[in-house]
């Protein structure tokens, strides 16, 4: 396999460049992350984030042949012989494939990702029926890898004002949580020209989510809820 990797060390390089590595496919290389590990033994200056190696932490999100994905769950078999690895698009590059996720997390925090319930505390837990709990499926599984938001052109153009698909998916997770009582405030917060409505249903987010989630569907559901409440 020929792997072309985006390289940039701000302490040494004036500008980024692509570096090629020749790696022989081996039986033990199941995932792209395994191949990256072997590149690291060849060249230990090559830098990338990784942690769980099983698709639950989101650390090794990167742009693989133009599409965002997680290196640890991208099989080598699914890749062509020439692979181009770039950092997640739209975010500032710290070094090689490591990006600054500040803007992404700022938007996530802005939607208040916690249950807001100021009613007197119940004796034990807030009760929730199985049907109410089912509504959270497809939303709580988000690992905040940023594959979706960094593939969204609307997020590229306004990362400081548009919440982005990940943030909006999590906003919906709390909006339809039966234990959360701040639905009106959450919907009002998203109802302006930028926070939600920069979304044009481009649907890159749903296409690249490594967990199979559908941020565009969550966004449409928020829009429908807003419409129902306003008429």
């Amino acid at each position, binding site marked *: 396999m020929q792997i072309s990797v985006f390289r940039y060390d701000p302490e040494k390089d004036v500008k980024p460049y692509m570096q090629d590595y020749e790696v022989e496919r081996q039986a033990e290389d199941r995932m792209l992350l395994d191949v990256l590990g072997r590149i690291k033994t060849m060249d230990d200056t090559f830098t990338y984030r990784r942690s769980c190696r099983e698709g639950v932490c989101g650390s090794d999100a990167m742009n693989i042949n133009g599409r965002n994905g997680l290196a640890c769950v991208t099989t080598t078999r699914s890749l062509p012989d020439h692979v181009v690895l770039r950092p997640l698009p739209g975010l500032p590059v710290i070094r090689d494939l490591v990006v600054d996720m500040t803007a992404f997390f700022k938007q996530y925090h802005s939607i208040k990702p916690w249950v807001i319930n100021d009613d007197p505390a119940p004796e034990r837990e807030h009760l929730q029926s199985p049907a109410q709990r089912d509504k959270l499926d497809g939303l709580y599984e988000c690992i905040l890898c940023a594959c979706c938001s960094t593939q969204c052109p*609307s997020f590229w*153009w*306004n990362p400081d004002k548009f919440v982005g698909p990940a943030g909006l998916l999590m906003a919906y997770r709390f909006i339809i949580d039966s234990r959360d009582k701040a639905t009106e405030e959450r919907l*009002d917060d*998203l*109802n*302006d*020209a*930028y*926070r*939600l*409505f*920069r979304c*044009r249903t481009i649907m890159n987010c749903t296409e690249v989510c490594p967990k199979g989630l559908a941020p565009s569907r969550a966004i449409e559901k928020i*829009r429908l809820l*807003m*419409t129902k409440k*306003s008429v």
Partner: protein
Amino acid sequence: MKKAFAGLRPWLLQRLTAVFMLLFVLFLLAHFLFDPPRSDAEWRGWVLSPGTSIVFTLFFASLFLHTWVGVRDVILDYVHPAGLRIGALALLGSGLLAMSAWVARILLFTPP
């Protein structure tokens, strides 16, 4: 100004005006197919008749509102400096108002 004015309402308006314009285009095509005007006078007579002129007015209102939301979206996406953005939106708004005035003049003052 309430934030909601800028969020859900333009989005809904864009879709409602799109549906209306689609129906209008089908209505116009049906008219050309089944009862095409044979002269300029007949065309004028039809457009300026009470019912049809109201439908045409609604169509142009829909068109300019739809255009306002669409081009405003493009400006909000790409024009980041606030002053430049206000200028671009003002230019868009005044252009659309001018065209609305022109359409109003045509529909109100053209002799039948």
